[in-house]
């Protein structure tokens, strides 16, 4: 097994392209408002990366990832809200020192649920721990009973709906349908200024790199290959001596943690959190980002997220009523025509460039290429970390460029 060198070479090149785009090209070409918009989109990419592991590799389709995004975002929002609800700032309320929406709802004391969010440390712990614990409970309840496939997808969707209803209904504790708004400072630092937003954009990129790194570590470990095995032959995995439920619970929790980080960064950058980001529609949209990026490609998920959101913003600026149709059409197109999404397109472009020069099939150190037309049996090897096809050494630049072409106009 001697492709270690090619892997890191390929990997570094794709990663460098992405960083070049996100950290240099976009900040130079976009104004502060547009850059903040890209920063917001990138927070969804955390969810999409979680879906690559959970759905693309492991075959576990969750239509409720907005729940974890929302939980992470709400934890952060609660902290920020408490910070901006000082007794001085809220002096006109009948109970100063509590968030304004609580006062409007005749609540006279900070609810116990909110008390931990006075502490930054507890908040940071909660941002990860709350969604992961919730994912763990769902995972245990579902996977230990061997609920999977469509049933699991429907249940996650129901959970997203229930959580939305709960948040909207408990207005005094959650801010209701408006969400938690008017967030101003983080540890005394004004997060509303253009400068702060630019800094937060780079913070988001740093976290994104961390998450990409972790996702790639998982997908290249034996656990990554196990996920693929579980997706394709769950029974065989059991009879090789693995507790399949534990594998699924783990990856579902990882996806939840990634989503939660995205949610918390969303709150920081956008300055509010609301139930519209938790429900069924955003959860499904996030699956589409992942599908457009190419389901099995970690970096592809980022490009997919950016591309769909760029399309959404430009389309809904000019034809707001068309967007939902556009999204539906896009999903169908991806499923029917480009099942491997952007990553697949980029890789086949890369192959087309390379084929005349290099006979990949007979190259002894590369695994045998497989029939690209078969959508369901996507080839995967230990070396597959971010692209659906494995033969693209110099071609990775194209991978980056194809995504970039769509994003620069954002």
């Amino acid at each position: 097994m001697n492709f270690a060198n090619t892997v890191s070479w390929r990997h570094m090149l794709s990663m460098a392209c992405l960083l070049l785009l996100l950290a240099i090209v976009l900040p130079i070409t976009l104004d502060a408002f547009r850059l903040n918009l890209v920063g917001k989109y990138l927070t969804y990419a955390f969810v999409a990366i979680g879906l690559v592991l959970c759905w693309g590799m492991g075959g576990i389709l969750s239509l409720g990832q907005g729940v974890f995004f929302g939980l992470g975002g709400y934890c952060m929002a609660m902290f920020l809200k408490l910070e901006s609800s000082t007794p001085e700032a809220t002096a006109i309320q009948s109970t100063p020192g509590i968030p304004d929406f609580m006062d409007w709802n005749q609540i006279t004391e900070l609810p116990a649920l909110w008390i931990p969010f006075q502490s930054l440390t507890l908040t940071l712990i909660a941002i990860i721990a709350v969604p992961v614990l919730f994912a763990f409970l769902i995972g245990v309840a579902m996977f230990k009973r061997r609920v999977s496939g469509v049933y699991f997808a429907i249940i996650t969707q129901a959970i997203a709906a229930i959580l939305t209803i709960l948040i909207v209904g408990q207005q005094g504790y959650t801010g209701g349908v408006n969400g938690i708004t008017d967030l101003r400072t983080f540890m005394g630092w004004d997060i509303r200024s253009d400068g702060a937003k630019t800094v937060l954009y780079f913070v988001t990129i740093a976290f994104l790199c961390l998450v990409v790194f972790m996702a790639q570590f998982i997908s290249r470990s034996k656990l990554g290959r196990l996920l693929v095995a579980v997706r394709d032959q769950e029974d065989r995995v059991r009879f090789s001596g693995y507790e399949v439920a534990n594998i699924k619970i783990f990856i579902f929790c990882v996806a939840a943690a990634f989503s939660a980080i995205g949610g918390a960064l969303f709150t920081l950058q956008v300055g509010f959190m609301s139930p519209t980001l938790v429900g069924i529609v955003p959860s499904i949209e996030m699956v589409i980002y992942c599908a457009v990026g190419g389901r099995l490609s970690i970096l592809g998920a980022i490009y997919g997220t950016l591309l769909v959101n760029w399309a959404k913003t430009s389309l809904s600026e000019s034809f707001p009523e068309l967007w939902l149709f556009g999204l539906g059409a896009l999903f169908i197109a991806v499923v029917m025509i480009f099942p491997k999404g952007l990553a697949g397109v980029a890789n086949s472009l890369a192959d087309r460039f390379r084929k005349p020069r290099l006979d990949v099939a007979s190259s002894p150190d590369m695994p045998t290429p497989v029939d690209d037309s078969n959508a369901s049996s996507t080839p995967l090897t230990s070396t597959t970390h971010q692209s659906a096809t494995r033969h693209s050494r110099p071609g990775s630049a194209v991978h980056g460029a194809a995504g970039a072409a769509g994003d620069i106009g954002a």
Partner: protein
Amino acid sequence: MSIRTNTDYMLALTDLSVSFDGFKAVDDLNLFVDENEIRVIIGPNGAGKTTVLDLICGKTRSDSGSIKFWNEEISHLNEPRIVHKGIGRKFQTPSIYEDLSVFENLELSYPRGHDVFGALFFKRDSEVSDRLQEVAESVFLEDHLDKQAALLSHGQKQWLEIGMLLIQNPKLLMLDEPVAGMSISEREKTAELLNRITRERSVLVVEHDMKFVEDIAHKVTVLHQGRILAEGDMDTVQNNPDVIEVYLGH
């Protein structure tokens, strides 16, 4: 039913029954397998052969009766635990990870790093690759380690699945129709393979191919409608009038 006397057998099924929607697929079955024995189960389609293997490996739960492995009741354990006791199972249709390479298929079956974090931090060291190489050679796949499993021939897939079991070094190997769909030369190689790997273990084989059964079986059990019709060495069974009537006759 739990007050059973212990036996000297490696595997002891006693009064085992299971029914699906009222249909008794396995009916009060008693089956005993010795250490280092190759036992073949034959019988017409729908006789319950696969179901017996399903019961032993935990895929199907029995309605009543007991399954003891080295005198330890295993019928309540889940599939991975039964695997860890030393029982490996090959399915009737080749059941391998088509998207992974032959090497990776074998590696996932290597008995280490079975929990989540063990798998996450699993190291592909020389002990692992040596063992994988050794097993790949024994199942005639040493030249195909980098090949995607989906691209193997049908017979090679069957061998790969046997290899995946051998890696686990099970004490009892259960094979459901291992030579189905194989060419004559592949069948002979498989018979030779089974005779070779059975030295340190017992094997329970379900098979229709009588030539193959003759090549490998120490003892044959004939199953019919979930019950044992006959049991003994190949000659005895082949000359049993009941067996000829329900199975060999056509």
